[in-house]
């Protein structure tokens, strides 16, 4: 059991009678790269909210490395080792790329060590290494508002890694990117997957095919099915949910959901 990085048990989130998550049981191994897909309103983002402490579950619980996450604050969970990337790039526009990474990289995040501390040489090395990983060395001293959409996405993923989390939660990292940028993000995530556990939420089937090993399909706040991309694609329930038609009519998923 201790090998599970993330586990949810009967996780339910109830918004005034609407169950965004309904008895969701999910588990993920250490070192896994998992893709979660699902139609609009399937509860994907609420799922992340419930894990990262933005929303408290009405029932059930989420366990991270066996520890219950209920009642912890967002920053507490982040410090505990879960990094979250938002759907749209959320970087500090008025700071430079390097400063963005440096803030995320800070090992001691309480007030006074942030005030009196300076970035250590190991932190500076981490930042320099990350700049290469996300391919933004040339733009390190530019303020982040001058980056393109795709560069911001990469920067935010870099900031996530700078936190040195055990688990990365990545919400739609390729929304609004060109094919080329999508491919570079896919490459980045695959490289990171070698040393991190990653959960990616995505709509873009082409992208999912590029990175997916294990796929979970959410539907109406619960897990519909799980398996390899191949299996999931041919599952009649998935096809029905996606297309709203009987399975014998069509066997292809839409390429962009």
């Amino acid at each position, binding site marked *: 059991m201790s090998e599970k990085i993330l586990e949810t048990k009967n996780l339910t989130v109830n918004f005034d009678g609407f169950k965004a998550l309904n008895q969701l049981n999910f588990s993920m191994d250490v070192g896994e790269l998992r893709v979660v897909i699902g139609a609009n309103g399937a509860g994907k983002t609420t799922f992340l909210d419930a894990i990262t402490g933005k929303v408290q579950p009405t029932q059930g619980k989420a366990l991270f490395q066996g520890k219950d996450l209920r009642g912890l604050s967002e920053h507490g969970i*982040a410090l505990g080792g879960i990094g979250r990337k938002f759907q749209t790039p959320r970087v500090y526009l008025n*700071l430079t790329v390097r400063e963005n990474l440096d*803030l995320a990289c800070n090992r001691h*995040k309480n007030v006074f060590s942030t005030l009196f501390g300076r970035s250590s040489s190991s932190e500076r090395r981490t930042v320099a290494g990350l700049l*290469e990983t996300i391919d933004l060395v040339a733009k390190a001293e530019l303020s982040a508002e001058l980056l393109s959409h795709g560069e911001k996405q990469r920067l935010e993923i870099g900031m996530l890694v700078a936190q040195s989390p055990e688990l990365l939660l990545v919400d739609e990292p390729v929304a609004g990117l060109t094919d080329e940028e999508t491919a570079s993000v896919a490459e980045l995530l695959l490289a990171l997957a070698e040393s991190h556990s990653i959960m990616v939420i995505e709509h873009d089937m082409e992208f999912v095919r590029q990175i997916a090993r294990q796929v979970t399909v959410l539907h109406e706040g619960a897990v519909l099915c799980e398996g390899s991309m191949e299996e999931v694609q041919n599952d009649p329930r998935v096809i029905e949910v996606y297309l709203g038609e009987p399975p014998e009519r069509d066997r292809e998923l839409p390429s962009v959901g």
Partner: protein
Amino acid sequence: MTAETSIGTVGRKRQRRQTLLMEGVAVVVIALLLIFAMPALLSGFRLNLLGRFLALAIVALGIDLIWGYTGLLSLGHGIFFALGGYALAMHLQLRTAEGLPDFFTLYGVEELPWFWQPFHSFPFAVVAVILVPSLVAGLFGYLVFRNRIRGVYFSILTQAALLVFFNFFNGQQELINGTNGLKTDTTEIFGVTVGSSQGQLVFYVLTVPLLIATYALCRWLTSGRFGRLLIALRDDESRVRFSGYNPTAFKTLVFAVSGGIAGVGGALYTVQSGIISPAAMEIAFSIEMVIWVAVGGRATLIGGILGALVVNFAKTFLSDQYPEVWLFFLGALFLLVVTILPEGVLGWLRSQGVKQMLGKSKKVSTYSSLEQNPEEERERENTEN
């Protein structure tokens, strides 16, 4: 690659040290001018005005710290200003009076209220000038920030708090002389009458290094990691939260510091204007403080100082010549700054300066259509709670 980066770092460090040195020299020159040249050049009355406005510039620095850098628009800094002023005025009253300060007898009070007692001590009063306002600000800030009250709601709450304090101080004749306030110009300290020209010169000279110390403090706070975190809080608080920082702690600290700064400004202003009364907690005055910073330029520090000086000298001049025009002028100034110079005079100068250096206007290479993506906007709003 690494070698290149380290060369870049060294170069940047040297450059930063040079700018810092130049800034230090400039500050010293200005300080010497203010301390030695101004008293010789200006009449006592003008010098007193300058001293008062320099005290207000201290307050403006505190406002810039929380508004310009951290994005917290406080409309209630009059509270902290007045608390600082009262702390010093209480000490001066006790020092001069034999037994009870005069006004107490008017209301039939025969024993000194308990909270006046420690103000017999000069060191206590000096500490209280800073600590009382910053503790009040810290407590208020903690309660508000913990509940994630932000933006306009935060501003409204600060103004409401200001009204509460204003009414309380107005109503308490038996405790702190109510509407009449506490006078300081006839009091004595170390054998000098506060209101005498000699006393006023001392307070003027004292204001200058305190302004510089406050400036240095703000410069230190806004540079380095802490300063970048303040900017990050202003730009995207939930990103900060999900990066593992606790925004409440940072905002509480910076709000408390800003309150303490306002207290120092309030105390220096009080001794140079001769009185502190609940009028310092009128709504308009606290809004004026914000206007100084808006005019000078947010998140520039120097802009706050210049804004406080310019607006207040304009106020003195205009309300001398055309007393009925001043409020209209203030309103017009605010509109002008908001519509034409949203970054204030200094911010405008800086951005123009950057353009001239590059020889062209800078191009922004983001996809503007994505910037205005309604879905993105909605997500931002949703995650902001």
